[in-house]
């Protein structure tokens, strides 16, 4: 599980983006287990709503408006940029531009956590490879995403199920999805369970 922490300076708190590997039966016609990533966050939308749970099964399961991912790092970067853009993090409400950059980062390589800092006076995140200037997101794109989010936020719902139950889920990033909440569990790999 990868946990990305994003520090909001004005609020003096951390928000998180969590990317978790999960598995369940998604297609009841074949009853095969499928593996997928679940991307979730507690970052609030700029309109006060919440982001839905995103399911990633292919590199095409990227946030709205994004191109196909080329690597897992690229995929995570796209989701991070999408969340902070729709949340309008780093949008300055002050006309002052004299303050120096106050962004900071904390890298936790041993626990797969990373942190980024956003503030209205700073427009950059700390990591050079994953920096995203929130000022680059134009107000038009933010507003268009906000309008998309307002329609989908009301549909968001999450459900949990036991590990032995099947779960239904949607891979569309604009729809809500239901996910199983099973923690680390065993499953028999269909490719190797016989003849050994």
């Amino acid at each position, binding site marked *: *599980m*990868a*946990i*990305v922490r994003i520090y909001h300076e004005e609020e003096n708190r951390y928000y998180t983006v969590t*990317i*978790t*590997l*999960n*598995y369940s039966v998604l297609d009841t016609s074949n009853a095969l*287990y*499928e*593996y*997928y*990533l679940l991307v979730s966050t507690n970052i609030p939308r700029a309109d006060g709503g919440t982001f839905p749970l995103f399911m*990633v*099964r*292919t*590199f095409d399961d990227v946030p709205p408006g994004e191109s196909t*991912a*080329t*690597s*897992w*790092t*690229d*995929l*995570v970067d796209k989701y991070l940029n999408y969340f902070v853009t729709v949340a309008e993090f780093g949008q300055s409400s002050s006309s002052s531009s004299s303050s120096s950059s106050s962004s900071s980062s904390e*890298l936790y*390589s041993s626990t*797969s*956590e*990373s942190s980024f800092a956003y503030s209205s006076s700073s427009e950059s995140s700390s*990591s*050079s*490879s*994953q920096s995203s200037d929130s000022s680059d997101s134009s107000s038009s794109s933010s507003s268009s995403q906000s309008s998309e989010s307002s329609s989908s936020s009301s549909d968001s719902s999450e459900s949990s199920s036991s590990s032995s139950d099947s779960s239904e889920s949607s891979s569309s990033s604009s729809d809500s999805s239901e996910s199983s909440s099973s*923690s*680390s*569990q*065993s*499953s*028999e*790999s*269909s*490719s*190797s*369970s*016989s*003849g*050994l």
Partner: protein
Amino acid sequence: MSVSVSIFSNTASVTRAVSVSFEGDILAGSNAASVTTDLDYFFKFISSAKSTDGIPLGVELNMGLNEPVLNGVKQSQTDTSNAYSTVSEMVTDFVYDYVYGHVADQFGSGVTEQNPMDF
């Protein structure tokens, strides 16, 4: 949080496991040309099982669906250089390689031999 894939040998009545997780870390070693402070996100496969010649099976990393298990060139199950289309396909192929191993330079991949998982 990781997913543990259990492999049961009905012949030996023994279960082995491959742990799969999605991580975000600074990488060093063979997956990093040079160690930087940049974070990379990847799938990590680990197993405490050994191959039939007693060698620990070790760690495998997957950086993307376009990186098949054998030296980033070929998939272990089929002779194809196509990228995986889904996470499931990738995980299954990596687990397959742990269980069945591969011969030296299988499918022209240039990899060294890895014996099958010992049960």
